[in-house]
């Protein structure tokens, strides 16, 4: 029967499943730890990890599975954040308005950028996605009403009726649930007919056309889905930091997202989460030790990229899902 279930041929206790299940369990218990240890910063740090994991996951959908290396993905993060911030500033505090606007705005941005960029390949694709993201960055810097370069403080988190996002535990579990839902969503997409077309186009696009697929429209829709998901991450991030600024979509942010996806393992469902966690924990840990964490992070990434095929997930061996 189900042929993809062969992935489980290493039994239910393959290293990957154990590690992923352990990871989910640890993440589920972070608020418990924070409460007992009296360590509210852990909540802040891990909420950020969950949010960046959603963003890296969305990038991984187009980059890892679709072969579309976008160097401007943080623009979607920023647009999602600005949608929340601008609406909050204008007195529209409902999350039921803010979040859909964030998602739709990012999706529209991805649609426009994708329609132009997806006609190019390789380095050109990377450079054009970067160019568009820089345009958005400078537009945001010029929005004087919304803080310009300095950014804008959000005084009230998105309102969802009786649910108060100022409650750190509730916010954390919301991020957690959205991340798990996103991973499941991406997993379904990747293994669907649509997902196989996307992966086929990464593998050999001329062949896809020769066999009868109009690849452009599938790649474009994939790009839009990734943009929408990243817009959601942006809405979460704005609520998390209570602040938006052009720095959210600086090109180095796009670079960070690529690093997370590569570090964790591009063809793995939990790769972006593993990568986001490793990246942010290292960044945090190293900042206690040195003023220049990049000096250590950079070489470390090189080592992983050169020697570890498939990122951290690749160390787990065995078959990959997706």
């Amino acid at each position, binding site marked *: 029967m189900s042929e993809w279930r062969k992935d489980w041929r290493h039994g239910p206790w393959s290293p990957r499943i154990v590690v992923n299940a352990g990871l989910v369990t640890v993440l589920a218990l972070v608020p418990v730890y924070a409460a007992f240890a009296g360590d509210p910063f852990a909540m802040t740090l891990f909420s950020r990890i969950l949010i960046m994991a959603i963003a890296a996951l969305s990038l991984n959908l187009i980059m890892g599975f679709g072969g579309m290396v976008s160097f401007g993905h943080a623009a979607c993060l920023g647009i999602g954040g600005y949608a929340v911030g601008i609406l909050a500033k204008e007195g529209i505090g409902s999350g039921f308005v803010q979040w859909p606007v964030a998602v739709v705005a990012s999706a529209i941005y991805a649609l426009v950028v994708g329609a132009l960029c997806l006609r190019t390949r390789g380095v050109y694709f990377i450079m054009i996605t970067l160019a568009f993201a820089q345009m958005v960055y400078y537009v945001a810097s010029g929005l004087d009403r919304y803080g310009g370069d300095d950014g804008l403080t959000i005084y009230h988190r998105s309102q969802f009726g009786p649910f108060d996002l100022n409650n750190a535990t509730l916010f954390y579990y919301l991020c957690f649930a959205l991340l798990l839902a996103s991973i499941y969503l991406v997993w379904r997409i990747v293994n669907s*007919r649509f997902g196989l077309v996307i992966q086929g186009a990464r*593998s050999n696009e001329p*062949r*896809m056309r*020769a066999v009868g697929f109009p690849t452009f429209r599938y790649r474009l829709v994939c790009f839009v889905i990734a943009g929408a998901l990243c817009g959601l991450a942006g809405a979460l991030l704005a609520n998390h930091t209570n602040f938006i600024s052009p720095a959210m979509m600086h090109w180095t942010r796009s670079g960070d997202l690529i690093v997370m996806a590569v570090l964790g393992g591009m063809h793995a469902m939990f790769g972006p989460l593993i990568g986001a966690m490793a990246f942010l924990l290292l960044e945090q840990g190293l900042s206690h030790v040195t003023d220049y964490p990049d000096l250590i992070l950079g070489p470390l990434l090189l080592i992983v990229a050169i020697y570890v095929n498939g990122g951290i997930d690749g160390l787990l061996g065995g078959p990959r899902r997706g």
Partner: protein
Amino acid sequence: MAEALLEIDALTKRFGGVMASDAISLALSRGELHALIGPNGAGKTTLIGQLTGEIAPDSGRIRFEARDVTALPVYRRSQIGLARSFQIASLFVEFTALDNVALAVQAHAGHSFRFWRAARCEPELRAPARDALLRVGLAARADVPVTALSHGERRQLEIAMALATRPRLLLLDEPMAGMGPEESARLVETLRQLKGGLTILLVEHDMDAVFALADRISVLVYGRIIASGDPAAIRADAAVREAYLGEQDGVRREGRHEAPHG
């Protein structure tokens, strides 16, 4: 002659100073196996590329089932029944053999904006894909990743993918290139079984295979068709002997082919 399935009319393609296609006109009737032979660099692959839409001709017309397809994009031509196999196997190397063929089936099973169901569990994609593998003799290798397939098996997989699109015209670009004698013999047998049901344009250097299979043969030299006719006529054609068979290893093979007759 039976009604033409494919009509090529004065097709011309120039690459710089090279005439890759020099006013080529050719008609394939339904159900025939038409072989296209010619020395290396004669423009055979360029002609195939123009038929599938990967290369745009400078001038001329291509009609498929009485419909002008000259400007149709590659994927549309596949959808209306033109399939090709590539001279250098062009496959999805991350996938298994069955995945490759199932993608070809999927391309012709409606749109693929289906985001939820696991495509590898859909019998309506997997069953026809297994059938196509069976037809080329690869059924036992269905779940093997492409990277683990031999050269010959990849060629067979190419043909299985083309068949899986349920084509009306099959364009085979040197399907036997680099195959061992046993694999070649099996492929000749496969093509013989496909003959009649399908219209096939076969580009091939293996003259044994060409003369064994072809209903008609056209000879392409420097972008021009210098002769077209049934195998006996081509073998007897003085211009062909001089321009092609006489200079190429084809004459030795052909000689061997003729040996039993004296």
